[in-house]
């Protein structure tokens, strides 16, 4: 193995110097890091906005902001979290960095398009900022329902254009990854030799490609309505506002699968490594990933049970929603079965993965309550919904993202972090999470509406404790990032394979050189073959 300098020290072209070696890079690894920085920046802002929401809700009546400000804060929190953090998150950061390596390729198929996608992401973020100055922050909620989104004087136009631009970044990334997987898999890397994280990126990419344009046209229509008053959703001009909701959710429901599929892919990588055992049901997980992508596109109107659409539609979409739960359950079952009779080694990535399995399952089960049309009427637009989607998007996707960061941090940077601090941060985060969102489930069942600035006095206790939980969560996350950063600055050097993995990224140096593979990658006939992984004394990075 040659001692080539790492990608952190090597520009993708020798002509690039200084900051331009990053801003003009076509190296998928550097682009992944640039996404990491931009996305974590927006994540921090959105967390701050979330904290403001929960502080405001800690007491009845006005606590720290006016009602108008509150509307803007929860709108921005949602828009930023969804379009600037969760949807790009795992694919743009970990997908970019790891997909080519996992399939034995040197880069993605369209490296310059990859860089272009990053710039589009940045421009989308800038448009979101501009919206604050063109009429003030949007106050419609991230769903931009008509008629309010057409009539309100707040900066909806620019926010919606920001989402449109971010959608293009998402689409082009999906396009790039699909082409990469079809054309650049190394010799002997057949479809059934591909790791499950790569499979999850593949399924996600198709959803990104085909569903995002529906959002694009929907957002364009809002802008057109605001400027030209065409009336396509205006009942006064013959329009149907429920059609807006249909179009909006035709994207936004598949979008949640864009969020969760890569997260599930991460869990599918972590579980076998720390069970020292092949994943249970590799083909089942592949099939369920594709099934989720497809079936998830057929259930969008379960967000609309109380909108006024026909009873037939309510019935059909409720039925299909229950069907979609099945492939997800198959995965949970497979992950747990992987642990069974495995040689389990605790590590921060595994800890996050186990929390994921619990929190995601709770989120999924609360989803059944929402998917059943009758019970939906009771909990629609209450805090029950808010808790549900935070369980799956935060307890699910974000926890998997954190687990993935802890799993692949040594590979990205060649540095380890402190395990004890990682566990403490994870525990703090999880305890805070549970204290924060379980009261919301109860409050929702008791009838507290979402997006309301004020509430009935009997809801105050629950909200107060939820607020405490919020602070614990944020403290946990802050501690987690500080620990990872400290690992970068003063941590131990990481070996190529600190965990005992079987996928290709663990066969190259940590951090990798510019050109991923100095010799042709040796592909196993089964990606989770642990037969020649020697048992290490401990998983604590001390090899």
């Amino acid at each position, binding site marked *: 193995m040659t001692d080539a300098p790492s990608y952190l020290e090597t520009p993708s072209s020798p002509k690039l110097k200084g900051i331009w070696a990053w801003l003009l890079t076509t190296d998928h690894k550097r682009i992944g890091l640039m996404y990491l920085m931009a996305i974590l920046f927006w994540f921090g802002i959105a967390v701050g906005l979330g904290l403001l929401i929960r502080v405001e809700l800690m007491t009845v009546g006005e606590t720290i902001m006016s009602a108008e400000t509150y509307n803007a804060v929860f709108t921005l929190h949602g828009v930023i979290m969804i379009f600037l953090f969760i949807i790009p998150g795992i694919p743009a950061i970990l997908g970019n960095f790891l997909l080519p390596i996992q399939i034995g390729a040197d880069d993605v198929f369209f490296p310059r398009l990859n860089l272009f996608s990053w710039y589009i992401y940045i421009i989308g973020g800038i448009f979101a900022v501009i919206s604050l100055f063109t009429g003030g922050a949007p106050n419609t909620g991230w769903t931009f329902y008509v008629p309010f989104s057409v009539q309100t004087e707040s900066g909806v136009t620019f926010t919606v254009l920001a989402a449109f631009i971010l959608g293009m970044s998402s689409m082009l990334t999906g396009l790039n990854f699909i082409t990469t997987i*079809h*054309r650049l*898999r190394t010799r002997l890397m057949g479809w059934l030799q591909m790791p499950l994280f790569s499979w999850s990126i593949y399924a996600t990419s198709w959803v990104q490609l*085909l569903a995002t344009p*529906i959002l694009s046209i929907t957002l364009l229509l809002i802008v057109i309505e605001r400027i030209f008053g065409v009336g396509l959703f205006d009942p006064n001009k013959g329009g149907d506002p*429920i*059609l807006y909701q*249909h179009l909006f959710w*035709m994207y936004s429901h598949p979008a949640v699968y864009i969020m969760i599929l890569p997260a599930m892919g991460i869990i599918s990588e972590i579980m076998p490594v720390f069970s020292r055992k092949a994943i249970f049901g590799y083909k089942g997980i592949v099939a369920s990933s594709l099934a989720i992508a497809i079936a998830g*596109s*057929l259930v969008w*109107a379960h967000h609309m049970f109380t909108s006024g*659409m*026909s*009873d*037939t*539609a309510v019935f*059909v*979409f409720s039925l299909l929603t229950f069907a979609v739960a099945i492939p997800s359950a198959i995965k949970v079952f497979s992950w747990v079965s992987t642990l069974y009779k495995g040689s389990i080694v605790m590590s921060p990535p595994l800890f996050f993965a186990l929390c994921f399995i619990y929190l995601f399952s709770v989120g999924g089960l609360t989803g059944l309550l929402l998917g059943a049309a009758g019970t939906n009427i009771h909990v629609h637009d209450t805090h029950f919904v808010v808790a549900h989607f935070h369980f799956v998007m935060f307890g699910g996707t974000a926890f998997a993202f954190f687990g993935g960061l802890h799993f692949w941090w040594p590979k990205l940077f060649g540095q380890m972090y402190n395990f004890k601090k990682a566990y403490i941060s994870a525990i703090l985060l999880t305890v805070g999470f549970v204290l924060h969102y379980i009261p919301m489930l109860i409050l929702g069942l008791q009838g507290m509406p979402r997006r309301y600035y004020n509430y009935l006095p009997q809801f105050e206790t629950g909200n107060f404790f939820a607020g405490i939980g919020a602070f614990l969560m944020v403290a946990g996350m802050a501690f987690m990032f500080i620990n990872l950063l400290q690992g970068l600055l003063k941590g131990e050097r990481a070996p190529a394979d600190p965990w005992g993995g079987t996928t290709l990224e663990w066969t190259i140096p940590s951090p990798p050189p510019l050109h991923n593979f100095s010799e042709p990658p040796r592909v196993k006939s089964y990606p989770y073959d642990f037969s020649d992984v020697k048992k290490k004394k401990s998983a604590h990075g001390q090899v």
Partner: protein
Amino acid sequence: MEDNGVEHILSYPKLVAVLCVLFGLTAVTIVVSRIELGILNIWIAILIASIKGSFVLLFFMHLKYESRLLKMTFVGTVVCLAILIGFIFWDISFR
């Protein structure tokens, strides 16, 4: 991984033939639209448009000579759109 050898070139006569078919079908669809067929009119119009579209796809866009992957993903996309349009009628038709 498929690697096309020498790719098929469409000759001018063949291209002209396709264009004539397209012109012909355009004439047909205009004529048929003037005949009162009630609800059938729109479906026939869509059918003829689909046939015209197929000629553009298969020959001008070369899809007939492309890989199975391209053919399947194209059909998949159209099916996806058809489902979106179709499923809306669970709502629209039963209000």
